[in-house]
């Protein structure tokens, strides 16, 4: 009776339960769940169901795609480590150092448009990789839990980034809370001037990373040995795979992906070096994206789009007098339902048994 249930089924159930919980919370707190639905549909299609006579506004759609870019990258980051049996909860720190490193290149080096942006992105990714190297190295060669080190590095990344930005970059005298604007050569250009959305050519990097992720993990010997390490590190070691080296590389690649997310956000949306007060939560979003996407490339792309919809829909929610934090609640519920998939599978099996009974109880 222990039928295997696909990762897709579990993800879908988690998403449905998460959304139901969100609707329930909205209902209990005296707001209208229909408004929430409208807000999400608006992000998805640009169509405002509350005011049907108004034309479609594509800005909402582009904002949704813009929101998806960094969380697909952090999703890939968490997913890559996950496939090697590591839990990268350090995306937040890698994101911030990536963002800061990109800001440094943007503000201190003079170069023409395309090479400048590419250099910014590469340096951002390298900084993220360095931030991933630390927990990877400590895990591989000192057997220290990567989760704790990653959490500590998130905060070290926050304060260290702020220190570097405040000390070495030119601070905007008007606000005192950010650097001066990046030169135009270091800004990721917008894809279209049709709408006010900041949707930019960073998406090329996202697509590139998605393809590389799939290719490395599924089509190369290196990827195979990474997956073997994640599946059973003792067996992988016995088979002659370099488990320690794999651990370090995997965390570095994961770090680079989160660093890339930090770089495209700062170069494409903010366009100035940032002083962080709190986390942006992109790193934590990556955890949900990777888990719901079952850590494979297509799944991550789809779940990244889904969570981006929750986030950008959340921003529209304010108009309907529903606090946008509701999307955070839904997201948490989805992670939780994926976490308890053991229970979900038990429930599914019971349900299957129930269906069989209805059909006349023919048990194979």
């Amino acid at each position: 009776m222990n039928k295997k249930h696909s990762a897709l089924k579990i993800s879908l159930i988690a998403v449905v339960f998460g959304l139901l919980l969100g609707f329930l919370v909205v209902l209990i707190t005296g707001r209208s769940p229909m408004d929430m639905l409208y807000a999400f549909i608006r992000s998805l299609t640009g169509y405002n169901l509350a005011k049907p006579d108004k034309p479609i506004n594509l800005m909402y759609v582009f904002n949704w795609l813009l929101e998806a870019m960094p969380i697909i990258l952090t999703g890939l980051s968490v997913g890559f480590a996950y496939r090697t049996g590591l839990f990268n909860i350090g995306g937040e720190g890698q994101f911030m150092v990536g963002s800061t490193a990109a800001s440094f290149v943007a503000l201190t080096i003079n170069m023409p448009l395309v090479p400048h942006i590419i250099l910014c992105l590469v340096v951002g990714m390298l900084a993220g990789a360095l931030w991933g190297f630390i927990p990877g190295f400590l895990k591989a060669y000192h057997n220290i839990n990567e989760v704790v080190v990653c959490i500590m590095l998130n905060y070290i990344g926050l304060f260290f980034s702020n220190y570097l930005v405040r000390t070495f970059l030119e601070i905007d005298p008007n606000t005192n809370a950010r650097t001066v604007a990046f030169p135009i050569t270091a800004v990721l250009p917008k894809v279209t001037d049709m709408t006010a959305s900041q949707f930019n050519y960073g998406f090329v990097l996202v697509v590139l990373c998605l393809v590389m992720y799939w290719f490395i993990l599924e089509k190369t010997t290196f990827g195979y040995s990474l997956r073997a390490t994640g599946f059973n590190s003792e067996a992988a070691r016995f088979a002659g795979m370099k488990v320690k080296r794999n651990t370090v590389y995997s965390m570095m690649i994961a770090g680079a992906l989160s660093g890339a997310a930090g770089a495209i956000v700062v170069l494409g949306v903010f366009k100035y070096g940032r002083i962080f007060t709190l986390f942006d939560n992109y790193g934590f979003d990556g955890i949900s994206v990777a888990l719901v996407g079952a850590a494979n490339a297509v799944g991550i792309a789809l779940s990244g789009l889904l969570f981006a919809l929750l986030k950008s829909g959340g921003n529209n929610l304010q108009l309907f007098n529903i606090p946008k934090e509701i999307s955070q609640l839904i997201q948490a519920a989805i992670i939780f339902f994926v976490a308890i998939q053991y229970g979900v599978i038990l429930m599914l099996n019971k349900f299957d048994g129930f269906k069989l009974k209805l059909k006349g109880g023919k048990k194979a």
Partner: protein
Amino acid sequence: MKLIIEMFPIALMLSTPLIIAALGGLFSERSGIVNIALEACMSVGGFTAATLLVILSSKGVPNAVWIASVAAIFSGALLVSIHAFASIHMKADQTISGTALNVFAGGLTIYLSEIIFNAKSTEAYSTGATFSKMSIPILKEIPVIGKMFFEGIYPTTYIAFILVLVSWFILFKTPFGLRLRSCGEFPQASASMGINVVKMRWIGVLASGAFAGFAGAVLVLTTSTFYFAGSIHGLGFVAIATLIFGKWNPWGVLFAGIFFGFAQTLGLYSSAIPYLQKLPNEFFSLFPYVITIIVLVLFASKSVGPKASGEIYDSSKR
């Protein structure tokens, strides 16, 4: 020297929530469940306490601050029971379930603030309604120590000291404590001796939520006048750092908590201290995190933490 004495009450104020939350983490990890949702429990505790205090004190209820604190304790335990259910009964990955709670609490507290107060934070309560600093008669006359420990100290700090003592006694001097700790080292062996691993872990995790909820209340009620998204600002994770630096031991936690509290205070005072003036402020903020990683590296070869902590309990495994 005079400055250090002056800084001490502030350091104690800042270390109190760290110590209490870390003690909570101690119970949980000793029973074998990692609780990275300390941050979440602190947020919910802080929010509950602040909200209740605003409401109760406006109605003139006596002892409102204590009622609010007790409510915070229950709210923390209630929240963490989700984590307990997932990790004890549903074989969930404890890091993932804890992360879910952290995301959840961050959203929930602000969502409810918007519903109740129509703002991104709770309303401010009057400073008269919250804990007041106290001085202990006679003892405060002792030179040096009197000024450091017995003058202008919040009662919550003394509660934290008592909790350290009580936790140590329960965990290390009673049969119950031995059983609970055994579940964090080798649960299959505990089960074979007739110990109810599930029950022990529930107690451990619930205790962690209750402690962290109280810690959140203490943090918000002693260092702020309202709850907002940045109220806890990662102190739940510093509490985990405190637990590790304190080597999973109540006395170690006490020492580590005061140490980290002192580090934060140095940050506040650095401009007044000649040697520290040149150090950037961020240095003091990231200090506890760097220390924790260094400590982990130093202690890596000696396994000081509970062995089975964080592992999914499989009763058939040997």
